């Protein structure tokens, strides 16, 4: 096992979890309002997958639940905390809050599956322009039932675009157990559109990193789409107001037992873990403190009569 790599990944995973827990605390204290979607339990996917990205060549699209994707990609805690507080120093200057992030080659959207047809368009443009790089798109199991998601899969299959679809199947769409409202299987759907399909239980960040690395290289070379389903779990509410009355007890028990973050933690020397956690806690606390002090956007600049 590559302990250096694992330590690096653990640091990012712990950063994401600490960020999400800090956000939860802010909401609980009423210091943040509105809504937000945490990714506690799913950190290993964001970190394992996005560790491969070439920032100048690849394009990444996220979802409503993209704090982890953003942090795995950029590590910019201050900008994300600022955005959630609606500050001018936020990722998009306080215009969007938690669900709408845009940074370099990374875009998200609050509409479930809503980014996917655009993601195929980005990939097709890359292909037409002869540019290198792939398009990596996250989506959720609930989002698999939106028409535009299925249309995007068909487009990728028809035009053979360099897209990698990364389904984070955490089994729930808000309070609905997705399986109960889904006909057939995701696998048969995806294959039906002519895309290769890979499934993996997302327990081990190094394993996710290795698997995604293979797929990533393949798509860079073949310029053809691949669909990757991760079995995962969110160990937090859908959003801040969620009492989680819908959870399936067996799933809950399994994933509490097998939290990928704790698994990585257990594999590292205690000393390393302590150092990482102390460093990350300081980093997050400092970023939130600075974000609190940052200014709000100026209404006179943003709100102007038209025409």
């Amino acid at each position, binding site marked *: 096992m590559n302990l250096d790599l694992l330590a690096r990944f653990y640091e990012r995973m712990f950063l994401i979890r600490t960020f999400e827990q800090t956000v939860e605390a802010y909401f609980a204290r009423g210091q943040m309002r509105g809504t937000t979607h945490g990714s506690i339990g799913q950190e290993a996917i964001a970190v394992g997958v996005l560790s491969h990205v070439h920032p100048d060549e690849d394009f990444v699209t996220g979802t409503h639940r993209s704090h982890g994707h953003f942090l795995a990609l950029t590590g910019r805690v201050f900008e994300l905390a600022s955005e959630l507080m609606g500050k001018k120093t936020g990722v998009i200057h306080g215009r969007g809050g938690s*669900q709408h992030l845009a940074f370099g080659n990374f875009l998200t959207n609050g509409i479930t599956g809503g980014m996917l047809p655009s993601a195929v368009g980005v990939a097709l443009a890359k292909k037409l322009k002869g540019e290198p790089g792939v398009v990596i798109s996250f989506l959720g199991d609930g989002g698999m039932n939106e028409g535009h998601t299925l249309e995007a899969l068909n487009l990728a299959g028809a035009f053979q675009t360099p897209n990698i679809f990364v389904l984070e199947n955490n089994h729930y*769409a808000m309070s*609905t157990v997705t399986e109960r409202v889904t006909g057939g299987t995701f696998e048969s759907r995806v294959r039906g559109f002519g895309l290769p399909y890979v499934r993996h239980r997302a327990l081990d960040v190094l394993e996710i990193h290795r698997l995604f690395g293979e797929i990533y290289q393949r798509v860079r070379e073949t310029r053809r789409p691949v669909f990757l389903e991760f079995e995962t779990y969110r160990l937090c509410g859908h959003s801040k107001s969620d009492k989680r009355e819908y959870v399936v007890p067996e799933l809950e028990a399994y994933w509490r037992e097998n939290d990928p973050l704790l698994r990585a933690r257990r594999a590292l020397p205690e000393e390393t873990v302590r150092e990482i956690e102390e460093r990350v806690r300081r980093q997050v606390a400092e970023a939130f403190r600075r974000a609190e002090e940052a200014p709000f956007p100026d209404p006179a600049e943003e709100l102007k009569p038209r025409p």
Partner: protein
Amino acid sequence: MPEMTLVQALRDALAVEMARDDRVVVFGEDVGRRGGVFTVTEGLQERFGEERVYDTPLDENGILGMAAGMALMGLRPVAEIQFVDFLWPGFDVVISDIAKERFRSGGQYGVPLVIRSPYGGGVKGGLYHSQSPEAIFAHIPGLKVVIPATPSEAKGLLISAIRDEDPVVFLEPKKIYFGIKEEVPEGEYTIPLGQARVVQEGSDVTIVSYGALLHEVLRANETLKQEGISAEILDLRTILPFDGPTLLESVAKTGRIVIVVEAPRILSVASELAAFVAERAVDYLDGPIVRVTGWDTPFPYALEPHYLPNVRRIVHGVRRALGLVP
């Protein structure tokens, strides 16, 4: 009469109609087991069963398309769209099928369905949990658009919407889902669609609003009273078909009008009401028609308090209508 919040009144309306008419079915994302994000449908599945109250996939196009088909077959679907901001994947069904069915079938088919959906700002929801697209629906011939401003209205209007023979888009001001309580008539209680409510009679200026903003207008009225301005306050209730006669009667009396909506200004409901008054009542007008509205930008997260009309902007609008300020 029991005291109810807007959410309780909506729940009561659904329960009353479901008990009275077994053609009424309720469905949408998370409406069954969980009882909806805002708990409007809480307890209905236990009471009326999984066949009449159920969860759908995350699929607005499917929800609205199935509602259309069920309505064609004589059922009375009440489809929930979790937030109106998420309706657009299913907009094609609304504009191409639901709105046009009666017309395009030569009157042979109607689609008596209700699309219920929370709308509007005030909860710090940002871009996709705050929009006010009532004018977009009102622009589509074949749809009715209804927005309650109080718990009683919510109940009376929702029951009327369910009983209507044609499709109704029923938008619920989520900002006041829980914040306002009042006595709500028990059992079958209806308010006819197409009728505005005169909330307060007055002689100097007419203020028209609806939804959550009506309450902001009432707060602004406290300031106006102190300044000796007598406002006639109208609650539109039905956005389309709106109550033209009540509007004209009021303007004929006051000679001034301020229209307060939270949607972006351009081509808003405020624009249509302004045009209507300008065409029909220009001879009665003693001052400019004033619109107090949201801004023509996507809904901003941080600047929500500046985006939404507030007491200060409403009072300023009234002063402009009265010629007290430029």
